[in-house]
């Protein structure tokens, strides 16, 4: 039941997320793209849970919880960076250059 289209949508979403992470410079946008990837994975879990049992649905809750925590921490880091450097453009944040 709608397994094929669900996985297709999930794949499109995931690819969009990866492309965003690779191509965008703004840390906030990259962050949102990461969330997009997580949710694409969530969609896959839910879709496959129809056939493979309830474990997939439970996993989705874990992923959401972790994603929320990650969002909190990530946004806090970004705020801190912004306070110091007045930018969140990743190209200008390269202190670890060898």
């Amino acid at each position: 039941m709608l397994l094929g289209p669900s996985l297709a949508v999930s794949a499109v979403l995931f690819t969009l997320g990866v492309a965003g992470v690779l191509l965008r410079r703004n840390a906030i946008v990259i962050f949102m793209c990461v969330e997009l990837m997580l949710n694409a994975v969530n969609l896959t879990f839910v879709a496959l849970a129809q056939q493979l049992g309830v474990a997939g649905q439970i996993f989705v809750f874990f992923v959401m919880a972790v994603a929320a925590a990650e969002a909190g921490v990530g946004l806090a880091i970004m705020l801190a960076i912004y306070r110091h450097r007045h930018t969140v453009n990743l190209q200008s944040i390269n202190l670890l250059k060898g």
Partner: protein
Amino acid sequence: MPALPLSLLWVVPALPLVGFVVNGTLALTRPTAKRVVSLVGVGTLVLAFAAAGMAVAELARQHPTVPLVFRYWEWMPAGDLQVSFALQLDQLAAVMILVVTGVGALIHVFSIGYMHEDPGYARYFAYLNLFVFFMLTLVLGANFPVMFVGWEGVGLCSYLLIGFWFNDKVNADAGKKAFIVNRIGDFGFLVAMFLIFTRFGSLDFETVFAKAPGALVPGGAVVTAMTLFLFLGCTGKSAQIPLYIWLPDAMQGPTPVSALIHAATMVTAGVYLVARCGVLFALSPLGSAVVAGIGALTALFAATIALKQWDIKRVLAYSTVSQLGYMFVGVGTGAYAAGMFHLVTHAFFKALLFLGSGSVIHAMHQAYAATQTHEDAQDMRNMGGLARHLPWTAALMWIATLAIAGIPPFAGFFSKDEILGAAFAEATVRPLWYAFWGMGLAAALLTAFYMTRLMLYTFHGPNRTGEREREHLHEAPPVMTGPLVVLGVLTLFGGALNIPHLFGGNAFLEHWLEPVTGVAHRLRPALEVAAATEWTLVAGAVLVAVLGIVGALRLLKPEALVPARLAPPETGLARLLWKKWYVDELYDAIIVRPVLWLSREVLWKIVDARIVDGLLVNGTAAASRAVGWLGSRLQTGEVGVYVVLFVIGVLAVVRAAVR
């Protein structure tokens, strides 16, 4: 009193070692305690002499035909190599320990007077005691390694004592020269030891000399190589051509040191070594010929240099080199007893000459010190007429001069005559020895000449020291003249030790040494000449000696001499001799300078600075830095790049997992 067991032989070398430890401690803690230092320094030597005397007396009672070996502990047990710390006493070692401790004790006594004002008094006696310890180890060692310890140890003490007044660079340089030249000889000794070990599997004298006649081809390459390398060691230690150059410079040390180390004992170690290894040398005619030839050449060559030296000690130094040459003619000819006999008599009269010159220098030094004059206290041109001021020294040194010139019945006459006689007898079979005999005779003429010259310029004629200085010249204290008198008596009667059968004597020393030299003599029988020939030889030798003395008395004019600072430079042949045939300059040009150049320009500036420092050390560092730089190019610090790499990595992993 019951005889003490001979296994207590270790006491003999141990006593001076105790002296060294005590005096060395005092030198570091209380250098002003001169009374204690003298007591310990001289006391241990006198006790060692007494112990040596007792040991030799016991040896004489038993008179064994094989050496008495005492093993104390296993020293180097390593596979096939078994070396124990062992001492051995035989008739040859007995002669040596008596000379070393006896003459050593006299010179220690003399040093009390000579070094009394020196701030390094305790250090001096510590070194001197250490020297005697090593010298005794050398002569008592029962195998090559133990002997080598003594051999190296006396070299060390020689270095320390030549550079005793190391504040003057020239003294420190002389010490270094002695040490480096000796190391060249030591290399020969070591190679000979390796050869002997590979051939015999043992380094004990007993085993090696017992196996040698059966295991070696007489005149073969192996035994010749062994003897030649051993003799290279001897040329270093005993100052023979080509390594004699260090000995005249060694006169920079205190005069008693010159008497003990650089005349009486240490420099005779080479003669002792050849006599000890007589079996090996008897098996190698070429090796023996080289020993005798180098000895004869050195005897003549050094005597010519001694003719024109002005420093009183340098004359004696070249005289020592020359007399050592005589000893090598003796042992190289197979006349081991004659060589050892000359070693003993030479120890007496040369120690007397050196201590006498020490007494002269002491007087001159005090005279100059009293008037605050800075003149050379050792230059004979500043002396003259000293017999009036130092009658004892003059008389005793005349005795020694007659002895070294070979005038009967003084000690040197018998020993020198025996060596020349043995060389002549050998020449009846091997004509080459006629040349050695001739050189020895010519050297005898020169010896008589230069020694008379020394006496004439030092003690006779007008005094050239200076008007004010003259009244400060006086004889040395009894502590210094005492040993001179004892040595004078020994010089007078030392010849009695081995009066040949020709003069109705019983050749005591020769018979005494028989158990040691017997094997070598069986391999190489001693040759005899007719009594009439021998008498002719003796007459010839005495004639030559008298000729030398009379010649010097007639030709030399002490009245014509002027003090050193006014003297005109030498010219012609005199300059050549005064400059010692320019041998030092020659060595400097062909060895020292090239070695220094090689060290500086190649080994330092290229090998060390470029290859070791540049290529190896800094090159390794540069290589790691380059690898690090390449690695660091990946670390752009940009998150985007990391993510790209991360994605590529994930894709690769997925790809691998799916396949």
